[in-house]
């Protein structure tokens, strides 16, 4: 093949692939895409916005390269007839432009980043007329424990939050470095033993979103997932009540099983629970006082605060709850925002008191 033929061939191929890139991106950002391209809360929404703003700004300096390189290649090809200036190596104006324009772009980006970074600081609470719901998150190998300190309950495998109300998370890890992340809602944040990080999120509407660990921590890493369910306020109350009623207390033996290596499902199985449903949700009706901070501090947990005898494993009181009656009707397990119906049991307000009766040994 002659040199010019090769150039032509190359350009034709090249332009085709250059076109492929935006196509790939656009087709990827369809409405069925999980993650922050389909944001379900204000944080992720803002992040998607920033993403496109940065792309738009950088495109100003990148597009010229992508468009002009093939043009130059064609125009100054070896067999072409364009001028040839082998000694031309300097142009003051071009130099000024090529420094000034990127500098300008970076200046704009700089101001923008400074503002947005402060605004989206995960430690910063989200403005709202409702008080935030506090949740404490503990990472284990390879599952998450969600403690609701005000409600005195905890869950694993599923994080239930009220929609349209800020969530204030405090996070730590009982093992190694992990990274807590709900893509559709917003920021990920590292969690680490002995350290607390904070994160503020909010879901706009009821829905189901994937949650993950992003920081590799061993063989079960890819199983360290959970479902986030944003529900209406009354459904949230119902969830609390039902957990208190149906859950098992998080006692010493249970805790030993949790602290063992294993993903959510394996833990549920070790607890003698039925794991036939997809999410293997585990619910705890009671947690020891200050559990989160004792785990974080590495000090021994005060089990006497938990006023119950450890229940026998595998007793009738199964705690694996069907994910949600409504979820099964919504055909797919996709993470798109299917509105949640309120839970049927919400009316009942059962107290966990009958469990307390099985008092101390």
């Amino acid at each position: 093949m002659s040199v010019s033929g090769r150039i032509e061939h190359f350009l034709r191929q090249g332009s085709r692939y250059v076109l492929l890139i935006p196509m790939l991106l656009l087709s990827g950002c369809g409405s069925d895409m999980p993650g922050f391209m389909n944001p379900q809360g204000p944080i992720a929404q803002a992040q998607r916005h920033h993403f496109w703003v940065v792309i738009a700004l950088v495109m100003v300096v990148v597009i010229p390269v992508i468009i002009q390189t093939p043009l130059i290649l064609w125009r100054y090809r070896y067999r072409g007839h364009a001028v040839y200036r082998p000694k031309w190596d300097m142009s003051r104006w071009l130099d000024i432009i090529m420094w000034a324009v990127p500098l300008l772009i970076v200046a704009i980006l700089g101001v923008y980043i400074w503002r947005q970074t402060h605004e989206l600081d995960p430690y910063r609470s989200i403005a709202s007329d409702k008080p935030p719901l506090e949740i404490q998150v503990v990472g284990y190998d390879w599952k998450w424990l969600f403690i609701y300190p005000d409600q005195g309950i905890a869950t694993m495998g599923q994080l239930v939050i009220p929609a349209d109300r800020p969530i204030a998370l405090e996070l730590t890890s009982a093992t190694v470095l992990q990274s807590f992340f709900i893509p559709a809602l917003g920021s990920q944040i590292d969690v680490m033993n002995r350290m607390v990080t904070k994160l503020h999120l909010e879901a706009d509407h009821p829905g189901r979103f994937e949650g993950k660990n992003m920081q590799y921590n061993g063989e079960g890493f890819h199983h360290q997932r959970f479902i986030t369910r944003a529900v209406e306020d009354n459904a949230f109350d119902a969830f609390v009540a039902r957990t208190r009623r149906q859950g098992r207390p998080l006692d010493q033996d249970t805790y030993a099983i949790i602290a063992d290596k294993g993903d959510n499902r394996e833990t549920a199985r070790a607890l003698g629970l039925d794991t036939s449903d997809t999410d293997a949700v585990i619910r705890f009706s009671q947690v020891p006082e200050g559990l989160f901070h004792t785990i974080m501090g590495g000090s021994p947990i005060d089990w006497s605060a938990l006023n119950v005898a450890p229940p026998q494993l595998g007793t009738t009181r199964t705690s694996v709850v069907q994910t949600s009656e409504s979820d099964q009707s919504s055909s797919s397990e996709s993470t798109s925002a299917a509105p949640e119906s309120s839970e049927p049991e919400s009316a009942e307000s059962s107290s966990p008191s009958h469990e307390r009766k099985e008092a101390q040994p």
Partner: protein
Amino acid sequence: MSDTTSLIFGRLGWDALPFWSMLTDHSWLSIINGVIATGAAGMVVLGALAAVILVTWLGKWRYLWSEWLTSPDHKKIGIMFIVIALVMLARAIVEAVFMRAQQAVGLDSGFLTAEHFGQLFTTHGTIMVFFMAMPFLTGIINYVMPLQIGARDLSFPVLNQVSLGLTAAGAALVMISLVLAPFSIGGWTGYPPFTELARNPGAGVDYWIWAVTLSTLSSTLTGVNFAVTIFKKRAPGMTLMRMPLFTWTALCTAILMIFGMPPLTVATGLLALDRYLDFHMFTTDLGGNMMNYVNLFWAFGHPEVYILILPPFGIFSEVFATFSGKRIYGYKILVIATMCIAVLSFTVWLHHFFTMGQSAHINAAFGIATMLIGIPTGVKVYDWMLTMYRGRIRLSVPMVYAIGFIMLFVLGGMTGIILATPSVDYQVHNSLFLVAHFHNMLIPGLLFGMLSATNFWFPKATGFRLEERWGYRAAFCWIIGFMLAFFPLYVLGMMGMPRRSVAYFEPQYVPWMIVAGIGALAILCALLCLLIQLWVSIRDRHTNNVFAGDPWDGRTLEWSTASPPPEYNFPVIPEVHSLDAFMTEKEGGRAWRVPDHYGDIEMPANSVMGVVIGLTSLAMAFGLVWYMWWLVIAAGVITLAAIVGRGFVRHTHRIISADEVRTTHERWLERLRQTAPIDRSREQSTDNHGRAMPPVEGAVQ
């Protein structure tokens, strides 16, 4: 195990063999993975055996020993570095293909165990960075830089051997870990506390620590060697502002090596203390603090990625200028931009851990500092475009890589800027978006740079061109394969897929994963094409001969000498009067003149230091991994003795007589004169024997 065997073998036992787990666990998954691991180990053992048998059969041991292993010649050391890099590249690409294959079928499970996958991404990342990229660029700089500055060798040839020995030892350690498994699963970043003894008590992390440490030491010494050479050994008249751009980037890379490697030495050293002597630097209990490891690692890690990218920048500068038949646009600005990048690269490392929990103002400050690097980088990109502008562009193989680089690199740069936006990084950190970003820099940037350099300087090193047809095929496979394999990862990352996942549960991922898998196959084809290219080139070496030394109408000094160059590079040290020294001479009709005077040349004598230090450091590292303390002590004593003993040696040089230099040189000049000068349109034909036609009439301005 009895006491004596454990004294001798430490904690090395039968279970280190890759097929051991297969014998105890008969599950389908275990068998498949056992077969794969055993196959890999077999390849290592058979490969080593085959090499030994081949050398014996050819009767080349003596030649190998005296001409290569003990040679202090920077050119031979450079080539040996590159050979290591190519072997390791092949292994790491195969590993990458396995990972891609696994993820292509990875909905719910797949065929690799999580443990095996963990070893794959760890070895792939570690090898690619420390045992492919670093030796490759070290090799190229080793070969080319002294020629470009008109020197006979590096400042410290024996130290150069030692660097090679250390790198080879590290690479050998990684190879041994295939046979006496396992390797670490902690990723190339090796974050504690996951890599602490409490979590990972096996030999894997220790393999990783010592392999990386050997490579780090090697690179630090190499950096010192390069920097001093460039400062002190330039030919007369070669001022700093007349140095070729590749040498400039080599200098900046060397400086980054000198100052960027110590943080890694500290990080891995402290981790080793934690693991071996029960320190508590990065543990979760007793006041340890792993965040400092992350901090130290990236204080190395970020300068490292610029160590990797600056030499390719220099290479592409030479390639763009040469194949556009034109001066580089904005030489001075390119130099300044390179220096800006080198210094700025020490100010941005926090962008690798935006999500750790620090305050917004720190994140913002480091995010903005990161973006600043985009400015000089952008200037370089524009300068390359303007170098082609008003040129006469020949699309040779090095140039195809360069074009692929410039178009793809800006996209990777753009995604880098996206990652440098802290609020967005909170979304895409640790996702496949990040994996796509850095491969987008490393493959079109680093790897294309290295392949471009190989195609560009191969005729210089061997005396014959690399065959072009297979070269184009390889380049196209690389470009297309890269795009197919990595663009889908951007989308997957935006969908929230974490890096280092052996499997996933989202059906939406599958089509993208399959495309990426196909891309990996294309890359495998590219690797095959490279091998065929090499083989075909060696087969046709006589017809593709370019002994006259200047096949591409080169601009810098390395093209002024024979191909391959004599041991002493230049019969007479050239005098430099301008940038693009050789081009100026050719234009002025002053090239290839017979020197009036030849002198005796003093060259460094052969030395066994490199081999000795390489072997002892390998033995020491191996002993440390398996707790064979006698081996560690013995190797340590021998190392010390060798270093002290070397100080007593006085016959470190040998003289090449002026007569010998004259005969060799004048014979070459004679042949050169009888060679027909070649027009640029025929530079890929068999007529090209390395003598370039004078500049095109009338086009000069």
